[in-house]
């Protein structure tokens, strides 16, 4: 469970309302694969990931980024019960997808960087701190059912 103050919750939902979530998802997932190329190991079936521009323009990367961010956005609505919200996704990532939870932390930091890029001066240290709590909470929730 993640503990955000009322001020932090307001910051998070206010700023989330200002961004294009689908674009954030696509950009974050794309940058994950460009900055940490070993994360491409889960996406060999996505086609051409051979360069930064290939990754960022890849239609499957964008579609998957959108899917991922929609789950993340769902988490934003259930900050008091992230473990419950992400329970079946956690099982899926462990049992079927075999994704090391370290990747959730890396993607969480990519989301932070994209938000900073898009929001500019609105992305104050306080805003960053609030969102870092959220991405850490989501990453822990996704790792929770691992065995």
């Amino acid at each position, binding site marked *: 469970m993640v503990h955000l103050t009322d001020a932090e919750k307001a910051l998070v939902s206010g700023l989330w309302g200002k961004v294009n979530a689908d674009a954030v998802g696509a950009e974050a997932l794309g940058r994950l694969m460009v900055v940490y190329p070993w994360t491409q190991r889960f996406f060999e079936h996505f086609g051409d990931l051979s360069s*930064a521009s290939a990754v960022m323009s890849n239609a499957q990367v964008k579609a998957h980024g959108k899917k991922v961010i929609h789950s993340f956005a769902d988490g934003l609505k259930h900050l008091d019960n992230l473990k419950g919200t992400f329970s079946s996704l956690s099982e899926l990532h462990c049992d079927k997808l075999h994704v090391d939870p370290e990747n959730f932390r890396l993607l969480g930091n990519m989301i*932070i960087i994209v938000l*900073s890029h898009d929001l500019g001066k609105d992305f104050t*240290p306080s805003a*960053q701190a609030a969102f870092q709590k959220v991405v850490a909470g989501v990453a822990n929730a996704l790792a929770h059912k691992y065995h």
Partner: protein
Amino acid sequence: MVLSAKDKTNISEAWGKIGGHAGEYGAEALERMFFVYPTTKTYFPHFDVSHGSAQVKGHGKKVADALTNAVGHLDDLPGALSALSDLHAHKLRVDPVNFKLLSHCLLVTLANHHPADFTPAVHASLDKFFASVSTVLTSKYR
């Protein structure tokens, strides 16, 4: 991990565009780090870490100047950072995990102020640069 020729070009160009703001960004990255990761403050009990602190500004400039020096010696980071490496190993002994935290906050700061220049490829090169600097600074720890 090796910095490719393209990485070195990306790093030099990106740092060139930062120009005179490097000190300011160093301070902002530290401020973000202290705020977001409070455990990092344990290395600065003697600092006022509040917003606008002169000590944080001064230290941000120090960090930025060291990075600027590193950018000028991408072909020999161990040589350029040797004295700092000794300092961190024998005197400061900052736990290696903290270098990742500061590196992340530096990237957040750069993305914030230079969105157009902070392309995925440049982001990747800068991440590698900060990781390389971190590796050199912790290389003599044991």
